[in-house]
Every structure is written in structure tokens, then in C-alpha cells.
């Protein structure tokens, strides 16, 4: 029984990690006032370029970097259009997802069916071998620790640092921030690029650690679930972890239930994460004052400094 619980926690963490990466990135991006609906596209781009880098070089570290860099590249297209050319953020984000789906499918053609070595869980002698807590604390793959570390740093950055406060100011009142002298557009570019790097990492986690292969559209809506997670978390990093684990749990529950049978058709079980996302959105959004209090006030609005 304990073995089963430990195994469940371990797998829940692997399912939650891509969501933690992507949602943390989007959270920072939205805190600066920019809504990037291209997370799904950036994840796919990160997944395919990360996978390609490992196939070519054999070095997982390079794959992780390639995924993040590809995500940054993709996010900067979005940034240029929305921040420099003042295009509509919703439409541009959708374009980024369509573009990312197409680009990853095309670039990934020659990688379909190839295999790479999976990023393995760490093993620290003595610590990992501790009963029960050993594997839960010291037995994950390195990227899981990276995801949690970045999430923690993000929380600290937003709450405790001056730069984090400036970022929030830009997202809550862009014209005031500009009037005081902060470079609104430059700060938003940085936030967008961070979002891209994180989505790319989330994608790379999928193709390097979660299922070590490349398949067209392999993110299967996780980018959109990450967007919902940011709302669920009321734009607070600490709640991102909770939400991601919840969704990871549902994913694993669905997989296990399929394996166990139960007589419920597999397709219905596969709907669970998507339906759960809708249910969670409804529960959170019901309280419209809470959303209004927590959402960055300038979210989705274009900013242009008047001469």
C-alpha cells in the first residue's frame, strides 16, 4: 500500500511538472500585463527542438537549453507583434499557437518514431534509500527540482524584490509606471521571454522526461490547462503548485482507471482533465470580485507611450 502511494506521488509529480513550468512562465507574463495565449504553441516548439537537440548531441542538458531557447524565440515573435506593433494580444496568442503547431509538426517529421535516453530520476546514496520519504524527497528527475526551484524563486521575486514590485506595477498600472520612468515595454519583453523560456522547458520536459519521444501535438492541451491554472492560482505562485499537482493527480487517476478497467470507456476517462479544468475555472471565477482584485489590471491591454 505504501509502495502504491509513493509510486502515485512520484507519477503525479511527473505529470504536474510541465504544468508548473508553463504556468509559472505565464504567471510572470500576465503579472506584467501581457496575456499570451500561445503557451500551447511554445510548448510544442520547446518539445520538438529539445528532442532534436538530444537526438543530435546525445546530451540531455543541451536538450533542456534548446527547448528553453526555442520557447524564447517563439515568445519574442509574439512580443514583437503585441508590444512593438501593438497587435491584439488574444489574436496574436492564437496565431502563435497555430504557428507553433505547424512549425513543430514540420520540423518534427524526421524525429517521429526516434527514441532517446530518458532523463532519469536522481539517486543519492543513503538519502534516496530512506524509507518512505527517501524517494518522495530525493528520487525525482532533476527537472522536477528545477521546476519547483523556479516556482519558489518566482514567488520570492514577486513578493520580496524591488524588481518584482516594478513588474507588478507595470501590470497593474502601465501609464503610471511609465510616468515614474520605468521602461514598460522593455519590462514586458522580459516577462514575455521568461514565459517563453518556461513554456519551452515544459515542452522539453514532455519530450525528454515524461515520454521520451516526439509526436505531433504531443502537449495535448497542456498549454491551455496551464493558462487555466494561472486563473485557478489567482495569479499567486504558491497556488500554481497546488493546482498543477491537482491536475497531475487527475491525469494519473485517469491513466490508472483506464488500466484497471472499471467498465468506463477509455475516451470518457480521457476527458477528465479537460472537464476538470472547466469545473475548476467555474468554481474560481464565480467570485468575480476575487478575480478582479487579483488579476493584473492591465491584462491584455496594449500600451503605447505618448510622446
Amino acid at each position, binding site marked *: 500500500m505504501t509502495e502504491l502511494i509513493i509510486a502515485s506521488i512520484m507519477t503525479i509529480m511527473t505529470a504536474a511538472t510541465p504544468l508548473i513550468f508553463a504556468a509559472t512562465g505565464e504567471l510572470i507574463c500576465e503579472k506584467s500585463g501581457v496575456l499570451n495565449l500561445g503557451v500551447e504553441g511554445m510548448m510544442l516548439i520547446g518539445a520538438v527542438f529539445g528532442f532534436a537537440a538530444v537526438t543530435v548531441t546525445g546530451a540531455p542538458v543541451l536538450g533542456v537549453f534548446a527547448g528553453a531557447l526555442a520557447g524564447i524565440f517563439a515568445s519574442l515573435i509574439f512580443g514583437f507583434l503585441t508590444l512593438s506593433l501593438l497587435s491584439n494580444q488574444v489574436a496574436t496568442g492564437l496565431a502563435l499557437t497555430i504557428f507553433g503547431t505547424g512549425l513543430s509538426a514540420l520540423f518534427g517529421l524526421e524525429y517521429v518514431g526516434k527514441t532517446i535516453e530518458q532523463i532519469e530520476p536522481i539517486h543519492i546514496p543513503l538519502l534516496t534509500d530512506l524509507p518512505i520519504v527517501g524517494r518522495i524527497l530525493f528520487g525525482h528527475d532533476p527537472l522536477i527540482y528545477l521546476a519547483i526551484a523556479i516556482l519558489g524563486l518566482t514567488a520570492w521575486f514577486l513578493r520580496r524584490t524591488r524588481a518584482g514590485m516594478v513588474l507588478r506595477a507595470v501590470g497593474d498600472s502601465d501609464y503610471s509606471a511609465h510616468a515614474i520612468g520605468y521602461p514598460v515595454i522593455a519590462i514586458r519583453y522580459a516577462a514575455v521571454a521568461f514565459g517563453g523560456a518556461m513554456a519551452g522547458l515544459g515542452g522539453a520536459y514532455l519530450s525528454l522526461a515524461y515520454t521520451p519521444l516526439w509526436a505531433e501535438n504531443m502537449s495535448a492541451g497542456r498549454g491551455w490547462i496551464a*493558462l487555466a491554472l494561472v486563473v485557478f492560482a489567482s495569479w499567486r505562485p504558491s497556488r500554481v503548485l497546488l493546482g498543477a499537482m491537482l491536475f497531475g493527480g487527475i491525469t494519473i487517476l485517469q491513466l490508472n482507471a483506464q488500466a484497471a478497467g472499471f467498465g468506463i470507456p477509455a475516451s470518457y476517462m480521457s476527458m477528465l482533465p479537460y472537464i476538470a479544468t472547466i469545473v475548476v475555472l467555474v468554481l474560481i471565477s464565480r467570485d468575480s470580485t476575487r478575480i478582479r482584485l487579483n488579476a493584473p489590471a492591465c491584462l491584455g491591454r496594449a500600451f503605447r507611450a505618448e510622446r
Partner: protein
Amino acid sequence: MPLEMPLLTLEARATPSASAAWLSPLLALTLTAITGAAIFLVMGKSPGIALYIYFIEPLTSWSGLSEVLVKAGPLILIGVGLSIGFRAGIWNIGAEGQFIAGALLGSAPAIFFYESANPLILPLMMLLGILGGMGWAAIPAVLKTRFNANEILVSLMLVYVAELLLIHLVQGPWRNPQGWGFPGTRMFPDAALLPVLFSGYRIHLGTIIAIVLPLLVWFALAKTQFGFQIKVFGSAPLAARHAGIGEKRMIWVTLMIGGGLAGLAGVIEASSTIGQLVPKISPGYGFTAIIVAFLGRLHPVGALLAGIAIAVTYIGGEGAQISAGLPKAVTGLFQGIILFYLLAFDLLTRYRLTRITISKSAT
């Protein structure tokens, strides 16, 4: 010594420029073709031949033209519906799910009365298709109006649910019992198939509906108060509220129009080119129609033209796959690039590039 520095800067236009609004799709398409040439070059294909196959060849034969119009049909129908919603600032991006839901509900008569020869079955299917799409769109509508849930995310999540529901039905309860276990329903009876217009070509009654409908919608929007309300609601929500245009009503109406048209497109697709339900009935029409709506400037007639333009790249993509060995995925990449260029050029509808001269003293 003062330096003269010519600089280009943006100056906001008092009203959006109409000519720039219609010029930017053309510019976007041209630049996409140029970018496409570069991509083909990188892939080691002759850009001239590849571009010809993609953008010209589908238009050089009657059968090619027929295929383009058949493909454009669902894109136009969905695109028209989406443009009405986008105009009002309601972001229904789950049209793909509404398309599937319409195909599912609309096909039910043909599947349950598979020997029917009753001519009324076809109108019934069309009606059910519209209702199916509306029903699927009603979920984000009710969740948005009652619980304030974001319609973008809800409608999108429902795409995945609809896809899984379709797969479940064609593999299980609705599977053809004489189909040797292959996923897919029975073939529809002749009475449940939309009539083909010219023998030898696939162009059918549904294609005509798709071509005529945008003109009707254009007329309706131009002549009714509702058309005006949509415009006001999208551009000035506060003014709209003062004018008594209810937000909830606007959300419901636009989602019902978008969902209904997507559902109609779904049942038309099932009862024409496919003739049954299979696990995958759409190559992403619902998402491509988002591009169609923007490329068509959120105008019904624009959606008609844009739907045809995008359909050319679909058919060209199929041709390129067969004759030049170019992967189908190129089409998806093109669609993303078109939208990027379009959004970039849209800057020119709202701003004007002006040359200013700054005198700077060099010290």
C-alpha cells in the same frame, strides 16, 4: 553642429483606415508566399515550382476549383460565425468542438434510420446539426454569463471533449456492425447525402449554402439594429452598456450564431464529402476558421474571400504532398505565418507612419 535625424514614427489615426484594413490581408498573403519560397529553398525544393503547386495549380482546372470551393465551405461557414463574435469581443475559439458536436447530433438520423429514403431526413439533419453546435456553444455561454468563466478556455477545453466523444461513438455504440471492426459508422443512405451539383465534381449543395450565407449575413448585419449593436459592443463596451445593450445577451447571441454555423458546417461535412462519421472528421477547420475570420476583416463577405484563399493552400498542400513530396505540415505553418503578418500590418490601419525630424546637437 546640429545633426538632422530623419525618423519614422507612429501617429494614431483618428479613425481606422479602411483602405489599410483591406490592403493588409493582400500584403500578408504576398509576404507569406515570399516566406514560403524561403522555406522551400531551405528544404531543398525549387521555390518557383512549390509556390506554383501551392497557390496557382489548384485554380487551373475545374476539378481543382471545385475542390477549393468544397474545402472553403466549412471554413466560410465557421469563419462568418466567428467574425460576428470576434467583432463583439467574444472569443469563441472552440468552433472545432462545435463543428464536431453538430456533425454528431446531425448525423444521428442517418445512423439510426440507415435505410431511410424519406426526403425530410436531410432538412432534419441540418436542423439537428445547427442545434448540436448551438448546444455545445451554450456551455461556454452559460458558464460565462452565470459564473464569469473565461469563454476562451472553456470553449477550447470542450474541443478535446468533443473529439474524444466522437472517437468513443464511432468505435463503440455507433460503429458500423458490418464494418469488420473498423472505427466508423454506417455509410449514410442516399437520402441523407447532400446532392452533388455537377456529376464528376464534388461540389455540392452545402458549398452553395456556404457561398450564399455570407451575403445574407452581410445584408442582415447592415440592415438591422443588431448589426450596429455588435459593432458598438466590440469597440466601446461602456457606451454599449449605457445604450442598453446587455452583455449577457450579446454573449449568448454571438455564441449561438458561431456555434450554430459551426454545427451546420459539421453536419454538412459529414453528409457530403465524408458520408459517414469517422474518428477524425476535420483537419482543424475550427481553428483555421479563426484565421479566415481575421483575414476577412471580421466581415462576412471578407470571410467568404478569405475562406477561398485559405482553401487554396489546403488543396495546394495536398497537391504538393503528392507531386513534390512536401509534407502536409507546411500548410499549418503557412496558416500561422499568414496570421502573424496580418496582425503586424494591422498596425497601419490604426496608426500612420510619419517622418519626423529631430534636431540633435552633437556635443
